[in-house]
């Protein structure tokens, strides 16, 4: 009887029995607190309603809207193509499948940005990247996209550009009628150059 065989048999048996003691703790893995602090002060974790509107209009395939309000609120009004995951079921194993898909940007949406911020912190602590919070939430969405305020005359040009975009977005999302643009009222005089005579032959 080979002694090595006996030794290997006992080793393998011990290893196999050892698997009974490999109980994994149920705690979810978390990122380091320092890392969370570093991420939490980044202003880039917020996206504005304008950016979200633009992505929806452009049908950006990387956008993943997660609505963290309750199911009733979600049924009343929600952004197109958003997924409803109420905050209390955010950490279910099925809900977590929505996060961490390579190439997607998860944007959390709620009535304001408090709930969505909570969702952001929870998922960030679990180590999911490319998650964002929509600033101001749906209230801000209504104020800026659905009912945009016309800027005052002394405001900057960018304010007018934003307004023009928001009016366009309003049409897209609500189907409201387009107001005639100021520019279209200006009469355009078309001045045509008179045709000069055909080039006379030189030779």
């Amino acid at each position, binding site marked *: 009887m080979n002694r090595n*065989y006996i030794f290997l*048999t006992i080793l*393998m*048996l011990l*290893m*196999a*029995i*050892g*698997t*009974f003691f*490999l109980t*994994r703790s149920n705690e979810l893995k978390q990122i380091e607190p320092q890392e969370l602090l570093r991420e939490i002060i980044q202003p880039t974790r917020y996206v504005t309603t304008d950016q979200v509107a633009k992505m929806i209009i452009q049908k950006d395939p990387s956008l993943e809207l997660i609505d963290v309000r309750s199911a009733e609120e979600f049924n009343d009004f929600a952004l197109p193509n958003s997924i409803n995951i109420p905050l209390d079921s955010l950490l279910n194993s099925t809900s977590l499948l929505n996060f961490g898909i*390579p190439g997607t940007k998860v944007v959390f949406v709620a009535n304001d940005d408090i709930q969505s911020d909570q969702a952001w912190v929870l998922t960030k602590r679990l180590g999911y990247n490319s998650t964002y919070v929509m600033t101001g939430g749906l209230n801000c969405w209504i104020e800026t996209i659905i009912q945009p305020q016309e800027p005052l005359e002394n405001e900057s040009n960018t304010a007018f550009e934003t307004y023009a975009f928001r009016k366009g977005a309003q049409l897209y999302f609500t189907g409201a009628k387009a107001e005639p643009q100021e520019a279209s009222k200006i009469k355009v005089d078309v001045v045509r150059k008179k045709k000069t005579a055909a080039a006379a032959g030189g030779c």
Partner: protein
Amino acid sequence: MGPLITNGIISNGWDFVIAVVIGIAFGFILEASGFSSSRNIVGVFYGYNFVVLRVFFTAVVVAMVGLLYFDYFGWIELSKIFILPTYLTPMIFGGVVMGLGFIIGGFCPGTSFTAVAIGKLDAVFFAAGLYLGIAGFTLVYPYIGGFFNSGYIGNVTLTDVTGISAAWFAAGFTIVALAAFWGTMFIEKRVRKNIKEYKF
């Protein structure tokens, strides 16, 4: 940490490189274990050589127990590993067909190619037959497709189906394997006594 590709530690393009490296290593181990000889392989059915059983049982047990430890140490996440979908009845039928081919041909698909690599004639015929079989299967697939796709259970493990924890299966398999190692050693000794000529 792992699976490396799923967790984005290395990019997708590497899977072919890794496949080639693992394939070469697998072929080398098969050849080194003597699997390129069909007498060695079918010996398990006649009782004079159990090297197939030993090598494969060792591989299964080491991988099984090792993965459980790796999962515990956080080196690989077992929940992220691809699990082959189970089609119960067709898989049992396929196993029987494969076993018959094993006895008749003296090779299993992988070992036939290692034997081709070292220039065995019978393996060349076996490999040719293998491709003929594949072609034949594609031709009759329309008639047997229904059976082929029946009995689908999904990407499940024994733990999912039975609810018994993986450690029980690991320990059970290990005990069965070790018992088989010692048992076959005695069978081999008795059978080989009665064989006059024994060459590979």
